[in-house]
């Protein structure tokens, strides 16, 4: 039985641990601290936690001011509000001003579930990816969440967006895993095709590779947890060595992982590419699992896409 962990739960825990070690860490939330799990930090360090109320634009720019005075602010809300509602504040006060603010948003993608389209961010990566100076990290599980947050505090002084989810993720990594921003993790090697995935789709991609293996197809699997700056080297190696790529993300096919990979290979080494993701539509209510299936975010869809891309590779 694979263990499951909430990426947001791990975020809440690691914040407290890092908060003990580093007094520069401050945390801001916009009335969602129970959901984003920043309430744990709020309880541990009330003087370093600021609930800004339902005011995301104010929260983002306030964080910029704290960073300008030497603090390391972590800012949390739902992905749709942190990136969409406050995009101009992220752009001007954080990215253009190059402030060391970490935006860690939860409830990304369709797995928000019942709350429906207004609360399901399928566009957040696209919004953040277009901003100069911004890095984007989408952890594949709770372990990677903790490692990434720790990495950001200790090794990075630039703006960063970390995308977390409401639902629990099956654990992929063990405690020895080392996160490095900008480096894809090779989870499985293969030469027939490459699956590049992020977030919850990593688990589905692992399942897909098992199915493919039984049919004699050996695919490579890359966890592209840093969407920006993207690991161009790993993508081009995959293109050259496997000749076919499938991307999988719980995000729109416009502007996210699939787009980023397409940009790299189309400029340097074009190979057949299929993007699995939400196909330019808004979400609906339902439970997370049903929605993932409804939008084609499944292991079966990855299997099908890999076969299609291998066939296309052979044709060309």
């Amino acid at each position, binding site marked *: 039985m694979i263990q499951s962990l909430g990426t947001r739960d791990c975020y809440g825990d690691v914040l407290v641990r890092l908060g003990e070690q580093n007094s520069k860490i401050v945390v801001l939330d916009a009335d969602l601290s129970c959901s984003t799990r920043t309430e744990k930090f709020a309880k541990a360090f009330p003087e370093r936690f600021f609930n*800004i*109320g339902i005011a995301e634009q*104010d929260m983002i720019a306030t964080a910029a001011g704290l960073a300008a005075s030497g603090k390391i*602010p972590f800012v949390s809300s739902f992905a749709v509000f942190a990136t969409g509602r406050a995009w101009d504040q992220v752009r001007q006060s954080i990215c253009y001003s190059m402030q060391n603010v970490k935006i860690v948003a939860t409830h990304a993608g369709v797995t928000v579930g019942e709350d429906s389209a207004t609360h399901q961010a399928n566009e957040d990566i696209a919004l953040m990816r277009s901003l100069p100076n911004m890095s984007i990290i989408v952890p594949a599980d709770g372990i990677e969440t903790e490692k990434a947050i720790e990495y950001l505090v200790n090794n990075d002084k630039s703006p960063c967006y970390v995308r977390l989810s409401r639902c629990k993720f099956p654990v992929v990594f063990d405690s020895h895993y080392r996160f490095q921003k900008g480096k894809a993790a090779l989870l499985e090697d293969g030469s027939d095709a490459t699956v590049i995935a992020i977030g919850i789709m990593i688990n589905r991609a692992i399942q897909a590779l098992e199915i493919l293996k039984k049919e004699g197809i050996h695919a490579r699997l890359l966890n592209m947890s840093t969407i920006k700056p993207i690991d161009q080297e790993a993508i081009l190696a995959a293109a050259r060595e496997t000749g076919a790529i499938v991307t999988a993300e719980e995000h729109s096919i416009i502007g996210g992982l699939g787009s980023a990979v397409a940009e790299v290979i189309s400029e340097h080494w074009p190979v057949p590419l299929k993007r699995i993701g939400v196909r330019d539509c808004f979400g609906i209510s339902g439970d997370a699992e049903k929605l993932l299936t409804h939008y084609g975010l499944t292991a079966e869809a990855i299997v099908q896409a890999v076969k299609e891309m291998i066939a296309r590779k052979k044709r060309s």
Partner: protein
Amino acid sequence: MPPLPETKVLELKEAARQLRIEVLRMLHRAKSGHTGGSLSIIEILVALYLVKLRHDPQNPRWAERDRFILSKGHGAPALYAILARLGYFDAAELLNLRKFGGMLQGHPFNLTTPGVEISTGSLGQGLSVANGMALAARLDKSPVRIYALMGDGEIQEGQVWEAAMTAAHYKLDNVCGIIDANKLQIDGCLCQIKNIEPLAGKWESFGWQVFEVDGHDVQDLISAFDHCEQVKGKPSVVIAHTIKGKGVSFMEGKVQYHGVAPTEEELEKALEELR
């Protein structure tokens, strides 16, 4: 602080006159920029930079400096002129305002310009940034004060009122908001475009201590900033009643000089008035 001696007041008035001349020359050379709203904030900047602020132009990142944020970023020419005068950077940079390859961007950019705390231009963000700096100062037990200058049109942005609530909630008495109340915005008179009155009442009801002054009277401004420092447990705002285009008769109160630089002829005429 006691009222300034007459000689000091005259000195500050002279500084304001020289800054106006500098701003008009910069804008004329740049052939674009915001003339009216730069001229309206001259005395506010003089009162702060030449009297009130604890700062060190030779060490712009000094941790104990008071912070000034030009939330109405389009007033950049006035800010640049006073920063250069104080030696934050070479005054020769003023010649290249808005020019390709120049240091001085059309709106304040913190990464290239010593003395600029944060980039501004898209309106409504500066007060929130000030709150963040004020919270940091409180955590650090630092006595620094944070000033954020907003336009009266700017406060039509909803974020300003989010920030107003935040400052009051967190009792940020180290924050001082300033409103450049010149009564005009790009499309016309505020009263016609979107009325912001009752201005003082709005801030009061948001939990702020309000002071209203003649925004072109340096002594008045300094006294108000002194009073703000005495207020405990809540933030203060100085509503500075100003005249857009102040100092140049044919620009004063004229909405068409919001975002237009003076022509050669207009510059000559203006400089004559300011001599």
